[in-house]
C-alpha cells in the first residue's frame, strides 16, 4: 500500500532525535527538500518529551544519545502507561552494532531499523516514503 506523499497542505512531521549535529543536518536537509517538516532534538530527555506530545508522524531515533539511552526512549514510547497516545512510526537509526538478541528485541518494538553508514540521506527519504504512515 503506497503511503501518502507529502502535500504542501499536509506535510508529514518528522522528529529526529540525533546527537551528531552534522548527521541531523544532512538528514533534515534531505527531508525538508522532500517536503517533510523536520524538528531535531540533540538530547535524549528533550527528545522523549517532544515525542510524547504525539505531534509527529515519524520519529527517527538514534540509540547513542545523551542523558538517556535510545532503548530507554523506545521502551517508554511503546509503554501505553507512560505514552498513552503515540501514532508515529518509530525508526531506529544507529551506527552501533548490537548483539543479535538485543537487535531482535529492538526491531520488535520499532517500525524499522537502519544502519546510518549504510544509507545515504536520499535512501532514507526513499525508505520513509514507503512507510505506511
Amino acid at each position, binding site marked *: 500500500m503506497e503511503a501518502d506523499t507529502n502535500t504542501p497542505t499536509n506535510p508529514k512531521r518528522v522528529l529526529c532525535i540525533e546527537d*551528531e549535529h*552534522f*548527521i541531523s543536518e*544532512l*538528514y533534515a*536537509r534531505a527531508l525538508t527538500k522532500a517536503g517533510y517538516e523536520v524538528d531535531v532534538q540533540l538530547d535524549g530527555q528533550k527528545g522523549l518529551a517532544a515525542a510524547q506530545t504525539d505531534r509527529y508522524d515519524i520519529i527517527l531515533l538514534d540509540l*547513542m544519545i545523551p542523558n538517556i539511552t535510545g532503548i530507554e526512549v523506545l521502551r517508554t514510547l511503546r509503554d501505553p502507561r507512560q505514552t498513552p497516545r503515540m501514532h508515529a512510526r518509530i525508526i531506529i537509526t544507529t*551506527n*552501533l*552494532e548490537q*548483539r*543479535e*538478541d538485543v537487535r531482535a528485541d529492538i526491531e520488535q518494538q520499532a517500525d524499522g531499523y537502519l*544502519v*546510518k*553508514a*549504510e544509507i*545515504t*540521506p*536520499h535512501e532514507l527519504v526513499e525508505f520513509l516514503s514507503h512507510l505506511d504512515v
Partner: protein
Amino acid sequence: MGYFEVFLRQFRARLFLIIFINNALIVADWYIVDQVVKLTGLWALAAIVAMPLITLGALPFMTASTLAKPTKFLWQAILHIAPNTANSVGAPKPEQLGLGRELVTNLISQIYQLASVVQTVEQTSVRAAQDLHANFIANSLPLPLLVLDKEEKILYANEATSKYLGRSASELTGQSVYTALDMSFQRDDTLFGWLKGSKGQAVTASHKWERVRIGLPGQGDSLIFDLAAYYNQNNSLGYETLLVLFDHTEVYAQDDQAMSFVALSVHELRTPLTLLRGYIEVFDEELGPGLSSELKAFMKKMDASAQQLAAFVDNILNVAKIEDNQLTLQLHEEAWPSVIETVVRDLSLRANVRGITIKTDIAADLPTVGVDRYSIYEVLANLLDNAIKYSKGTSEIYLTAALNTDGLVETSVKDFGLGIDASILPHIFDKFYRNHRNRAQIGGTGLGLYLSRAIVDAHGGQISVFSKVNERSTITCTVLPFTKLQEAGKTGGNPNITRNAHGWIKNHALYRD
C-alpha cells in the same frame, strides 16, 4: 654347608669302593689263574693282564653316570633359569637322586626357587612397564597426556588431563576421544582427518595444531590449547596414538576481548563514513550537472570508495561476531533472483567505475531458498567485490545461478582476471592468509572469503573455488532450497530457522548443524 662334606665323604667312599673292587678282582684273578686253574707261562700272563683290562673298560663305564649325576642335575637346573632355553626340565624327584643327595637337593632347590623368583620379577616388571598408571613420567607430566587405542578410544588419561577437563580418569577411559573432547579446529586440518590419513599410510607420524578449542566460543567457558599428536601403527601394547595438550586458554581468550574493541571501532568508523556518504550524495546531485565528465567520474569513484569502506567495516564486524559465535542467522524463505538483483545493483557502481559490467544469468523457475537475507547478501557482495578486485583490465564479471544435480541452488561468480596460483588456492578461505611471494595478488581477500565460508557453512551449503592463473577464477556457493531446508531441519513448518555462523571447524565429518 655341611652338605658338601657329606657329599665328599660319599664320593670318597664310592671311589674307594670302585678301586677296591677293581683291585680285589685283580687279586682274585691272579689267585684263580695261578692256584686254581694253574696256568703257566704266557697263558698265565695273558689271563692276569686280561682282568684289569676288562675292569678298566667296564667299571668306569658302569659307574661314571652315577658319579656324574649330581652335576647333570645341577646343569639342568641352571638351564632352567637361563633365559631363552627351549627345554626347561622340572625339578628332579628325590628318588632320582643318589650320590650327594643332600648337596644336590639343596643346591637344586635353591636354584629352582631362584628361578620362580626371577619369573615373578620378570612378570611384575613387564606388567609395571605396561601399566601407565604406574609410570612415573606419564603420571607426573604436568601436561595433559592421553593414549588412544586403534579405535581412538581413550586407554589412559594422566592426572593432568583429569584436572584440565574436570573429569576423572575413569570417566574418560573407554570413551571415544571425540566424544570426551569435543574439539574444534581453526581449519579443515583436524585430528580426525589426520589420523584417518596416517592410518592408511604411515608407520609413525606426528603432527601439531594451534589454537584448538574444546567447546565453541560464546558457549560458556571453553579451553583453548595447542595439540601435539604421535601416531604409531605397530605398538605391541595397542598404544596407537599419543596426545599432549598445551593449554593457552588465558592467552588466547584475551583475543575474545577483541569483540568489544571491534564494536567500539566500528561505531567510530561509521560516524564519519555516514557523513562522507551523505556529502558525496549532495555534491553528486547538486554540483554534478555542472562538473566536467572527469570530475563527475571522480565523484562516482568517491562514492564507490565510500561504499567499499562501509562494506569493509561490515566485514570486520561480522568476522568479529563469527569469532565470538555471535553471528546468528535467521533463515527465511526468500526468492533468490531478488536477492541477486539487490546485490548486483548495489555493487554496480563499484564495478562501473572500474569499467566492469556485471552480467547475470539466472535460471528461470528457481525454487525459493532458505537463507538469512542479510548475511547471504554479504556473501554475494564479497564474491562480487573479490571478482572486481581480481578483474585487472578485463571488463566483464558473470554471475550465474541454477539448480545443480544435487538439487541445490548453485551460484557462481566468474571473473577473467588475474586468477589464483595453485599454491595459494587451498588457503584462500583462511582468515588473513598472506603468501609472501604473492603479496600483490592477495591483497584484500583476507576477510571476505573467510566470512563467506562461515556463512555458507552455517546455511548448510558449500563454497568452492576454481582458478587458472592469468585466465579466470570462479567461486561457487550452494544454498538449500527452502523445502530441502525444512526437511533437513525437521522444523515442522516453522518458517524461522536459527543458525550460528562461526569460523571453527568441528573435529569430524559427522558435523552438520
